[in-house]
């Protein structure tokens, strides 16, 4: 895509990198880096989606006839790792964060542009390495959690490549987090108060705090695990006197916050999208900020609820059950705030709005099963079954991925200056929504009836429900087609969007679309009320 700006509009026109090649360069422009994150993440989403389709084809019949069992394990490991570390985390943090945060704080770029580019360029090599490990000697087989002793006893080379890749991605994530914190805290335009920031800034601040506090622990844990695999130490190997539960504690100290790293930015994005398309101020801004920070604090002290069957002592079960149940409070506040934002608004039913509403519906469902899973007796019953799979996908697909699509429909005009086709968008939403619910809702039933996850073969009595689920997966795969067609067609000859097609008030719309290299013609505008809808536009500065 070529971004062309009138020469008189910007005084450093000669400095602009030109043409599509800059998307393959070590560019320091936060907008270019944001798009790099998005496109790179989407390519990995297609790979991860293909792997998911392979899983659902395998599970359409009770026997392992589509692929051998060890290949099934590799496929599910790669699916999980790619979707989490290469699609959701980089896109919902890196892509939208890099594109939007400098606009929101009124800056010309991120606080550390070079670090930002380094953080992005760590991703493609580690992703390719991960995918390539399948062709080396078989990819990792131990699932995205890499629990020892499984990860120690399965073939080593795949597991080591997996560890290296996740370490690089973790490093990328930490660099990104440092950059976001510094940008939001330090690089705000003079006069812009913290409590005037758009909600996505708060979400990214909370997310980045979680990244900085928890990702290093995962890095340390994986280094110890790699010692166990390469150097024959016994940190997590019971045969050599080690302790597998220590791995689980350290792993979930990162990986539970990781769920919030994946979903908090989506909370922020939906808080940007709903007010624009409902033409109403965001309901309960202050409670929204405090609930984000509440989730950050609570998110760090609930990790052991993943380990209720790992011999956790009763006091630990009690503490982590209560702490987890508490998270429902700030999350519930946010949910009611979104509903109240929509209430009585002039809602336009467009693709961005539909995906956001789809998010709210899916997320409340995933949230309710989450509260159920926090209860020890119930959790022990459904642990490691398809109920957990269903819950997790309701949060990350029904929640975050819906918001990623919603955001693409919302910000595509900003990035390219062209509108996306609404008919294709609505078709995309309908197929995705039906396909998603058809795929994952039946898995609750499967889990409650005891079908274990991560196993290629299952009891034939579950076949019919599994086939429904696979049908849903097929629809989800098909839903990508109208989206891709839409993006390509609109990109080439879409309707011109103008600078501000949604009449939005957040700062990124107060410059040209696509924006000039350093974001603003002159000084950045001071937006004191990013959600001041319903007032006269002229009152806004």
């Amino acid at each position, binding site marked *: 895509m070529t971004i062309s700006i009138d020469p008189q509009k910007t005084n450093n026109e000669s400095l602009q*990198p030109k043409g599509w090649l800059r998307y393959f360069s*070590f560019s320091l422009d936060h907008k270019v880096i944001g798009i790099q994150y998005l496109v790179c993440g989407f390519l990995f989403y297609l790979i991860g989606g293909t792997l998911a389709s392979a899983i659902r084809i395998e599970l359409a019949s009770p026997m392992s006839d589509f692929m051998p069992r060890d290949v099934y394990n590799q496929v599910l490991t790669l699916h999980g790792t790619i979707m989490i570390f290469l699609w959701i985390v980089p896109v919902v943090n890196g892509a939208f964060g890099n594109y939007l945060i400098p606009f929101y704080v009124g800056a010309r770029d991120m*606080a550390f542009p070079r670090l930002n580019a380094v953080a992005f360029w760590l991703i493609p090599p580690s992703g390719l390495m991960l995918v390539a490990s399948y062709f080396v000697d078989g990819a990792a087989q131990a699932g995205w959690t890499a629990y020892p002793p499984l990860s120690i006893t399965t073939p080593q080379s795949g597991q080591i490549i997996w560890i290296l890749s996740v370490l690089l991605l973790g490093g990328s994530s930490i660099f990104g*987090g440092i950059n976001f914190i*510094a940008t939001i805290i330090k690089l705000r335009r003079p006069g812009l108060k913290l409590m005037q920031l758009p909600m996505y800034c708060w979400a990214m601040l909370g997310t980045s705090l979680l990244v900085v506090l928890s990702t290093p622990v995962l890095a340390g*844990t994986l280094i110890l695990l790699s010692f166990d695999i390469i*150097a024959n130490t016994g940190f997590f190997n019971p045969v050599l*006197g080690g302790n597998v539960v*220590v791995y689980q*504690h350290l792993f979930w100290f990162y990986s539970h916050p990781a769920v919030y790293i994946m979903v908090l930015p989506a909370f922020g994005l939906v808080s940007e999208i709903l007010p624009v398309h409902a033409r109403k101020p965001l309901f309960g801004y202050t409670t929204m900020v405090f609930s984000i920070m509440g989730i950050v604090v609570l998110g760090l002290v609930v990790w052991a609820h993943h380990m209720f069957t790992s011999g956790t002592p009763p006091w630990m079960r009690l503490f982590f059950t209560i702490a987890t149940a508490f998270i429902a409070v700030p999350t519930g506040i946010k949910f009611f705030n979104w509903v109240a934002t929509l209430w009585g608004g002039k809602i336009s039913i467009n693709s961005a709005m539909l995906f956001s509403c789809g998010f709210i519906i899916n997320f409340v469902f995933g949230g309710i099963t989450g509260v159920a899973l926090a209860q020890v007796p119930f959790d022990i019953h459904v642990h490691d079954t398809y109920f957990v799979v269903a819950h997790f996908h309701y949060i990350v697909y029904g929640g975050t991925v819906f918001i990623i699509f919603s955001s693409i429909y919302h910000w595509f005009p900003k990035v390219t200056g062209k509108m996306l086709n609404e008919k294709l968008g609505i078709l995309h939403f309908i197929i995705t929504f039906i396909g998603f619910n058809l795929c994952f809702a039946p898995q609750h039933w499967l889990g409650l009836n005891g079908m274990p996850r991560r196993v290629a073969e299952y009891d034939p009595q579950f076949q019919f429900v599994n086939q429904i689920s696979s049908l849903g997966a097929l629809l989800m795969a098909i839903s990508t087609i109208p989206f891709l067609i839409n993006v390509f067609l609109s990109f080439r000859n879409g309707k011109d969007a103008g600078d501000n097609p949604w009449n939005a008030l957040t700062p990124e719309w107060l410059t040209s679309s696509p924006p000039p290299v350093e974001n603003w013609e002159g000084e950045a505008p001071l937006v004191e009320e990013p959600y001041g809808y319903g007032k006269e536009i002229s009152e806004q500065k």
Partner: protein
Amino acid sequence: MTTLESSKEIQKNNSEVNETHEDFRMFGLITFLIADGMTFAGFFAAYLTYKAVNPLPDGAIYELELPIPTLNTILLLVSSATFHKAGKALLKDKNSDSQKWLFFTAFLGIIFLICQLFEYFHLPFGLTDNLFASTFYALTGFHGLHVTLGTLMILIIAWQSRIKGGRLTSQNMFPLEAVELYWHFVDGIWVILFIILYLL
């Protein structure tokens, strides 16, 4: 103009813009050190959990002697003070004094590493002997890696302060301040490590 060149131009342009803001490089470094500290926190938590729940198997050897690590603790604490001296001297534009203090700090760091290696070679257990041996080497090794990096960085800034009109002046204190903060951080980690590994 190639894209890389224009990126550089923009970077130059950005740094000019950023000069109107307060300097937030230190803020970024502190955030990074918090992250780094969390890695150590994870290691410490693992070690303490092992100590609480995993008994040392019969016949396993895990004994530590105190003299060398005590000497090392003193070395690092003194080096923190000498680094501080270097900063003070640079602030008063006494570049050559500053450089001497920096070299002395780096020297203390190298002595620390030599002592550490000496301890490794004289310990009665190896990396894979038992769980506590592995944890000991992982923790001290990871810290030693930090000391090695720190020493290299001190040598680099010492070299930078020698060139006439070089980067390190009383106007541009950031490289020195950044490495100093990192060095104090590594010292602090060592003190915690010394207490947890050797004294507890």
